[in-house]
């Protein structure tokens, strides 16, 4: 009998738990999932919560629902991962494991940016609710959407927020009294995804009158003067600041010495097995930027399927599950317009060329696909 620990109940952890529960049905292997929250949140909907389109209860489900499938769920804080001893400290107690999947995601660290208390953001559910209140109070002026650094969850989100704000302000007849500025480290909107996607997003922002301030690396926020300051000396005054908070990988003190200088666990980019121990897998936002994949739930999802396949093959002796598909898709909802971009990261994973990206569709009807996907996600993995 093997004990498999899954650290994190986000996209990656949830998919691994489901795949293993199905694949190991009827066996005596033990599957444990640990998360600090009692809920799994569908994070792509957080901007909808901030813009009043969804309520928090609609974008979350209890992780305890996994217990019906045979997964034990422990609510607790992962304090330490001791790979050489095959132990994890949770809520002050040690848990042993035979195989482990670490999918702890990225943590938001607002304190790392001076003056961040002036800013709002939808990168957490509480943050989304505070941002909603700030938008409700807003009566016109300049809204600045800033980005604290290149590493953050869901790279297209700031663009979506800009588009959704334009739509919301038009509905409240405040758009003519307002200006929306998007300040980003990239030279062009989503330029890392190539000209096909960048061109469409630039066109949408231009149509919506959103000013794009490129190559802007934010350094700090001056609360007294209400300005966002860039490393190159540029300053952007604001009346309302929405800011992607600084993110850091949630490595939970994992295996000192086997992290990159930026704190990402070192993994084999072909198998996602840790360099420290091949019986430990690390997936999702806590590793992906270090292997040139984006910090996005969809990538964690496909990694999770592949990792579950490897675990099932190991435990059952033979198993043909999913291979890893290095693609990402994201439904970008701009309120009255929506885009479905996709990128194939096969070449960049091998460092052989840029990602191959295109647009699968552009229509406001695509918002419906996002809503249906959210519903399917909960029904499939947490019903």
């Amino acid at each position: 009998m093997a004990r498999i620990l899954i650290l994190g109940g986000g996209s990656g952890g949830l998919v691994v738990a489901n795949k293993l529960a199905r694949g190991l049905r009827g066996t005596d292997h033990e599957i444990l999932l640990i998360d600090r929250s009692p809920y799994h949140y569908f994070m792509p909907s957080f901007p909808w919560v901030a813009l009043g389109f969804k309520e928090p209860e609609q974008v979350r489900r209890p992780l305890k629902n996994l217990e019906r499938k045979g997964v034990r769920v422990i609510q607790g804080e992962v304090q330490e991962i001791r790979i050489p001893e095959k132990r994890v400290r949770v809520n002050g107690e040690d848990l042993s494991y035979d195989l482990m999947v670490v999918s702890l995601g990225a943590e938001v660290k607002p304190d790392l940016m001076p003056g961040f208390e002036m800013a709002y953001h939808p990168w957490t559910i509480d943050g989304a609710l505070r941002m909603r209140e700030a938008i409700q109070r807003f009566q016109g002026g300049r809204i600045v959407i800033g980005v604290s650094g290149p590493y953050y969850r869901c790279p297209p989100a700031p663009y979506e927020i800009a588009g959704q704000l334009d739509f919301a302000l038009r509905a409240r007849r405040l758009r003519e009294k307002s200006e929306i500025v998007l300040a980003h480290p990239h030279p062009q909107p989503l330029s890392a995804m190539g000209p096909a996607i960048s061109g469409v997003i630039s066109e949408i922002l231009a149509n919506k009158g959103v000013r794009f301030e490129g190559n802007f690396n934010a350094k700090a926020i001056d609360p007294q003067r209400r300005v966002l300051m860039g490393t190159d000396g540029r300053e952007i005054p604001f009346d309302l600041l929405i800011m992607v908070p600084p993110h850091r990988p949630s490595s939970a003190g994992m295996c000192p010495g086997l992290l990159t200088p930026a704190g990402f666990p070192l993994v084999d980019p072909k198998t996602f097995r840790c360099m420290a121990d091949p019986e430990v897998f690390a997936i999702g936002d806590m590793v992906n930027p270090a292997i040139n994949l984006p910090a996005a739930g969809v990538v964690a999802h496909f990694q999770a399927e592949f990792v579950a396949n490897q675990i099932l093959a190991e435990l059952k002796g033979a198993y043909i599950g999913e291979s890893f598909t290095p693609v990402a898709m994201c439904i970008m909802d701009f309120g009255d317009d929506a885009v479905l971009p996709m990128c194939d990261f096969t070449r960049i994973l091998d460092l052989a060329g840029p990602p191959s990206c295109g647009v699968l569709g552009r229509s406001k009807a695509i918002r419906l696909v996002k809503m249906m996907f959210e519903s399917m996600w909960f029904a499939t993995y947490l019903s």
Partner: protein
Amino acid sequence: MEEITLQDPKAQEALERALRLLIRMNETGTLTFLEDVTELLPDSLSYLMDPRLLKIGANLAYLLHVVELLEPTLITVMMSRLVEELNQELTPERMKELPRVGPVSLLKAMGDPDVQRGLGILLLFLRVLGRAFDRSSQELLGLMEQTEKTLAELRRQRAEMERQALSVQAS
């Protein structure tokens, strides 16, 4: 919404129909098939996310977008006149004896105002084609240069990480 009880005749009728349907589905095996499909549902997404299929989808979507950019009035008027003219010119009689054009008749045809207009359109199209290809090749060369720089930096970072991992494993 009004409260519904099992004693309600409407509820009984609906339930009876649903039960009959379920029995029929069970007898025909449809219910078993649906059970299997629900097992497949969580896997379907990853099979559909084949990069080849996605690229075909993205290219088709772009071609459809080009069609979307065309103005229906313009296209309808232009295409209908083109079809009319083709129908007038390409008659069965004409097809039996297709005109043969040599250097002399080509020069003669150049005097025809319709041929002159057609040539003008072709030349205009050639000019647009040349200009567009020139711009796109410049843009692509710039992108390739930028990509090479980025990849070189990423290769350097990965080599550094691998070196670090090896030294930790050795110790």
